[in-house]
């Protein structure tokens, strides 16, 4: 594929030390990485900070990226590990914020639109399941690609996607026509 070929040449140039090539990679992959983090952590500002951290961490490690490997899967893998680390380190404040958010949203519950319902349902999913859903249902990752990015077994990814999808559809009140 032409786009993958472009990625490969940009990665090769970045591995040779070209910051310009790395800058092009940032431009090309900022959208999937930020979208994944927004869906995985729910907080857009924090997601964008983590996305920046992801690219900063990717630069010194780009030499380890194998030829032909999916750049977006590699970046999403780094992003996911960053997300898990920040999640663990901010566990206390997150619990406090979540309680505040729950109180804040509760009075308007009747007026929730589908997007907010989806966001709430995503927030209720366990982190691994949420990440699998964010990659496979929202970002068109194959199960194998998501398994590689998240460092999870393929079967686990498939079951996470199936269960997560079912929970989201129930929350949205959409009949599951795949059954």
């Amino acid at each position, binding site marked *: 594929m032409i786009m993958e070929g472009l990625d490969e040449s940009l990665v090769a140039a970045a591995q040779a030390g070209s910051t310009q090539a790395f800058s092009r990679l940032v431009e090309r992959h900022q959208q999937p990485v930020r979208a994944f983090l927004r869906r995985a952590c729910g907080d857009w500002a924090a997601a964008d900070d983590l996305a920046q951290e992801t690219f900063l961490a990717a630069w010194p490690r780009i030499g380890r990226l194998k030829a032909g490997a999916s750049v977006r899967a590699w970046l999403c893998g780094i992003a996911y590990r960053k997300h898990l680390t920040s999640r663990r380190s901010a566990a206390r404040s997150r619990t406090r914020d979540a309680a505040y958010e729950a109180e804040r949203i509760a009075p308007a519950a009747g007026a929730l639109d589908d997007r907010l319902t*989806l966001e709430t349902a995503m927030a209720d999913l366990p982190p691994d399941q949420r990440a699998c859903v964010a990659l496979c249902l929202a970002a068109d990752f194959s199960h194998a690609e998501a398994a590689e990015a998240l460092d999870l077994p393929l079967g686990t990814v498939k079951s996470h996607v199936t269960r997560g*999808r079912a929970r989201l559809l129930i929350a949205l009140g959409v009949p599951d026509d795949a059954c």
Partner: protein
Amino acid sequence: MTPADHRLKALFAKDAPPARDPAFSAAVIERLARRRCLQDLALLGAFSAVGGLALWGLWPVLQPALIAVSERLAPTAWALALAFCAVAVLGGLGERAPAVES
């Protein structure tokens, strides 16, 4: 892909960031440049500290040697400096001033 999947995907797409975001890319590159600058500064600082310590340790040995060498080399250094100045001045006079276009 089922209609339910399409619906989910459409809802997810509403929250997607823009495909091109120069501000985000610029912020990443700026942070990267800042980080590299700080690393370079730290490296230079470390080298300077090591060099300073080495000079401080070796100074009792270096000082007499430097004094002896500088006394012997002083006339040669003067001659070289004068020659350099002469070449610079004479060479500078020989250059033509750039023509001003009217």
